[in-house]
């Protein structure tokens, strides 16, 4: 992205080829994906069609918690054009329960693709129908009769965690699916020896969802002839899905043939669609025909997954007189809804960023994964870190507010300093690079911080208050899957990786097959930039095939697009494969041109001898020699080169220690610094963002425009969550806003025109110096709450991550709806 101090990236008008002799990495080259997407020629799952296919519709529970006495599908099955029905009872007989990530007791949960014997959230699928048309399937689903015996629903997180709460899964014994304690440094010592202790009894991070605009969808064909199950879907991590689907169906993992092309956003919420895919596969087998399902938006909101809701109880913060914060302790109750599924991974993933951007040394988090009669959660953008980073930023702001300190100064006093990188946190994570002080200064400069402070004073008494808030946040990327052992020591996972295949095709064309499953992140373009630079080609001459395709063989168990890692793992794989192809090209050219490898140049699809460019071989000539004329090559060379290379990138990780809960949990730490200027109308509580700046740092940007687009998108999600978007349940466990009419997705006029800048600090740990980015760390949640706190003063603590007009008004006018804090200070000279 552009700054006054950097050279503007060259502007390329449309999809024209950029010049061939300039490195493409670091340039905002136009995206290769755009051509088809702008013409409506993208291929999304609902665009796919198969001969004889039927349409699936799920029957969903109206109750949040009930026993299933009977399911009668006879009226539905009798309709002409209905091909098959499926009930929980059949599922119990035909499949095994899904494996669980959780250890005991949460690991005992019996989770199937349809509700068996009991429903645990309103919207849970209890039966499914396959019929000739989508309308008929829906009509038939309406004829399925389910006899329920309602049970008391458990909706409130803290109430659910109590011993006397009704239990969702009797086999677990309580609603606490996982419990773990993290304890680093000596928090009790710090609390005893601090000049001040700030106590915050209650903080609540609300439930919301990034709602990708394309809902879940799958077209599944269980072919009895080949004994394969073809799964065309928009699942964003197919090999993870396979870990659940294959054992549930009792099939080999290689019988599952995954394929995807374009995906209309995912944000982590398309990871757990394996439950739907399993049911669709069963219907396909039963009817012996392809089965297609496209989720309706109202189904997506109530029935797919939501982001994690988290309550922090009894937070205590030791602070020294000079504003040094020693750390904190808290008890976290993470509400995951009705099933564990991806959980309790949230119970360790937050610890990737345990001290946030700060040098805190004494940290204690008691963490519970709590089950409730709400929609299950999925790893929504910023997963588990944004909840925790919001806590950390609230702590810093509440400390500043309660002790009358400057929120900028408190941050700067406690930030990790630029000269301390790589920085090891108390739990053994290694922050790779950063300049938090410099980035905050730049963000403050972008909004004219001093000018706004002046206008804030001028506005006093005008009926409009101005608040200026800061959000410091991290986007930890490239997870070490060994951290799964911290929540379940028996899980045989560690490290990470990604695969790519780079080959020269018969006519000398270069193509790359990725294992990643992008949903708008521009992998085709950035891969082509990196690979093109290695092979001396413009990005347009590199054909990149993204998306799942089991047949291409470009995958490992970690493949997919999630957790801010493509710029490291996906690019690392593509780069490695391209270098192997380059080595082949040079090997052939060296022999044929009778030259040394170091004399050879790769440029524009030709290998030539430097200074003697007439001695040259085109890629097409090399392809011809290797593929169609190999007797003309020396045998030792013909045996050596394949022009077709699969490479697996493996980040340099060890296995974390589950006993001490320490280790190198993520490879890269991108950072973002947000400054929000917020106006609040005192009479109504209406808020308006007056100015907003974001400075991000993600190592070396491959395509600055794509990086900036991700920054904008993540920021919009954060603004949406803090001011507009929330998933609210009533006491019966009914979702109150299950459509886009009442789930207020942020629109264009609601979104600030963000000002951005990027300060590259290359990562010493990654192949290109780039860091994963894109999730954004929930920056606006921190910054807007900080701005509200700034405007409200010390009498009210902004204690909820969701602050719509009504709550702001109550905090402002009545001092209600917010939280409180207590400060205990040591008498002077007491120590």
């Amino acid at each position: 992205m552009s700054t006054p101090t950097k050279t503007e990236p060259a502007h390329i008008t449309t999809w024209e080829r950029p010049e061939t002799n300039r490195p493409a990495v670091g340039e905002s080259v136009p995206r290769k994906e755009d051509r088809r997407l702008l013409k409506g020629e993208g291929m999304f799952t609902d665009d796919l069609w198969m001969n004889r296919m039927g349409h699936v519709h799920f029957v969903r529970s109206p109750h949040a918690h009930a026993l299933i006495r009977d399911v009668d599908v006879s009226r539905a099955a009798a309709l002409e054009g209905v091909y098959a029905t499926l009930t929980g009872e059949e599922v119990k007989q035909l499949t095994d329960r899904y494996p669980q990530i959780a250890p005991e007791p949460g690991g005992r949960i019996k989770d199937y693709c349809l509700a068996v014997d009991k429903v645990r959230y309103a919207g849970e699928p209890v039966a499914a129908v396959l019929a000739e048309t989508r309308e008929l399937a829906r009509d038939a689903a309406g004829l399925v009769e389910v006899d329920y015996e309602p049970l008391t629903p458990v909706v409130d997180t803290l109430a659910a965690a109590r011993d006397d709460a009704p239990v969702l899964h009797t086999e677990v014994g309580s609603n606490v699916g996982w419990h773990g304690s993290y304890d680093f440094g000596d928090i009790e010592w710090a609390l005893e020896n601090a000049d001040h202790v700030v106590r915050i009894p209650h903080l609540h991070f609300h439930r919301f969802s990034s709602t990708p605009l394309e809902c879940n969808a799958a077209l599944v064909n269980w072919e009895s002839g080949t004994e394969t199950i073809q799964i065309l879907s928009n699942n964003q991590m197919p090999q993870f899905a396979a870990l659940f689907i294959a054992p549930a169906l009792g099939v080999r993992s290689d019988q599952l043939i995954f394929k995807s092309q374009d995906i209309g956003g995912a944000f982590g919420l398309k990871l757990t669609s394996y439950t739907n895919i399993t049911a669709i596969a069963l219907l396909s087998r039963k009817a012996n025909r392809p089965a297609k399902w496209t989720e309706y938006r109202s189904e997506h909101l109530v029935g797919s997954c939501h982001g994690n809701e988290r309550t922090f109880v009894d937070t205590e913060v030791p602070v020294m007189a000079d504003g040094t914060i020693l750390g904190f302790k808290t008890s976290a109750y993470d509400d995951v809804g009705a099933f564990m599924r991806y959980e309790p991974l949230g119970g360790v993933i937050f610890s990737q960023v345990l001290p946030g951007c700060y040098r805190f040394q004494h940290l204690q988090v008691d963490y519970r994964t709590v089950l409730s009669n709400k929609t299950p959660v999925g790893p929504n953008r910023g997963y588990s870190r944004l909840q925790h980073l919001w806590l950390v930023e609230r702590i810093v702001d509440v400390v500043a507010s309660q002790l009358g300190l400057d929120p900028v100064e408190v941050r700067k006093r406690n930030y990790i300093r630029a000269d301390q990188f790589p920085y090891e946190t108390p739990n053994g994570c290694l922050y790779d690079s950063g300049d938090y002080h410099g980035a905050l200064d730049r963000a403050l400069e972008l909004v004219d911080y001093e000018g706004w402070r002046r206008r804030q004073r001028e506005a006093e008494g005008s009926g409009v208050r101005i608040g200026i808030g800061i959000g410091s946040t991290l986007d930890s990327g490239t997870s070490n899957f060994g951290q799964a052992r911290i929540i379940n020591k028996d899980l045989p996972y560690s490290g990470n990786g990604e695969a790519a295949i780079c080959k020269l095709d018969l006519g000398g064309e270069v193509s790359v097959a990725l294992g990643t499953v992008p949903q708008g992140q521009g992998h085709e373009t950035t891969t082509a930039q990196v690979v093109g630079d290695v092979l001396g080609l413009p990005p347009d001459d590199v054909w990149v095939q993204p998306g799942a395709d089991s047949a291409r063989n470009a995958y490992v168990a970690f493949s997919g697009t999630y957790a801010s890692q493509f710029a490291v793992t996906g690019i690392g794989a593509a780069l490695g494969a391209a270098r192997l192809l380059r080595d082949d090209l040079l090997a052939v050219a060296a022999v044929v041109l009778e030259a040394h490898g170091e004399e050879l140049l790769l440029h524009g699809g030709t290998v030539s001898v430097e200074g003697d460019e007439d001695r040259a071989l085109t890629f097409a000539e090399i392809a011809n020699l290797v593929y169609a004329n190999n007797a003309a090559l020396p045998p030792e060379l013909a045996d050596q080169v394949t022009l077709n290379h699969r490479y697996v990138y493996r980040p340099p990780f060890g296995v974390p220690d589950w006993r001490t809960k320490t280790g190198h949990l993520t490879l890269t730490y991108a950072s973002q610094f947000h400054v929000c200027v917020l106006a609040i109308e005192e009479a109504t509580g209406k808020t308006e963002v007056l100015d907003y700046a974001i400075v991000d740092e993600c190592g070396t940007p491959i395509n600055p425009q794509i990086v900036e687009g991700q920054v904008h998108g993540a920021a919009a999600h954060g603004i949406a969550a803090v001011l507009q978007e929330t998933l609210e349940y009533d006491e019966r466990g009914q979702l109150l806003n299950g459509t886009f009419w009442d789930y207020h997705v942020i629109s264009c006029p609601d979104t600030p025109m963000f000002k951005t800048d990027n300060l590259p600090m290359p990562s010493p740990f990654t192949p290109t110096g780039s860091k994963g980015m894109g999730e954004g760390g929930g920056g606006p949640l921190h910054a807007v709450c900080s701005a509200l706190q700034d405007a409200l003063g010390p009498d009210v603590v902004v204690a909820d991550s969701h602050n719509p007009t009504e709550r702001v008004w109550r905090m402002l006018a009545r001092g209600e709806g917010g939280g409180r804090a207590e400060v205990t200070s040591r008498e002077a000279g007491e120590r």
Partner: protein
Amino acid sequence: MAAEPQGTEPETLRQIEVTVNGQRERALVPVRQLLVHFLRDTLGLRGTHIGCDSGNCGACTVICDGKAIKSCMQLAVQADGREVRTVESLSGPGEPPNELQATFTRHHALQCGYCTPGFLMSATALIESGAELDRESIRRGLKGNICRCTGYVNIVHAVEEAAGVESPEGAAGEGEGR
């Protein structure tokens, strides 16, 4: 025109004639079929997308008799006798992008691309309306379309350039005050 209903049975099919992207289409459609399903399933124009079932997201936006409409909020039979334009009308397969499509690429105004056809059609109708446009009227004019990837900033820049509106941050919206 319509098949005579038999007895008390409700009419289930009706003949319609609609001009889509300049082409006259005659079809017998189920009376409960949505216009978006007629475009996607019957005519195979898969560029028009569906992102919600309540008329909020605008992924299904098409231009009908010059106005941007949400094709999931209309029945196919309501398009009888009308003229509909979809994203496929903006530039043909293999043809260069039109000006608006080119500005979308230039400003990186799309990521996953699912909402994009709807935005292109809304913006086309906005620009063709002849209304005096500036940044605020463009932002308000795009309120009927949801994008979950871009945060809208670059979409505003793209439409500004296509509409010939000078960006407050300077020529072509570059710099964005950064």
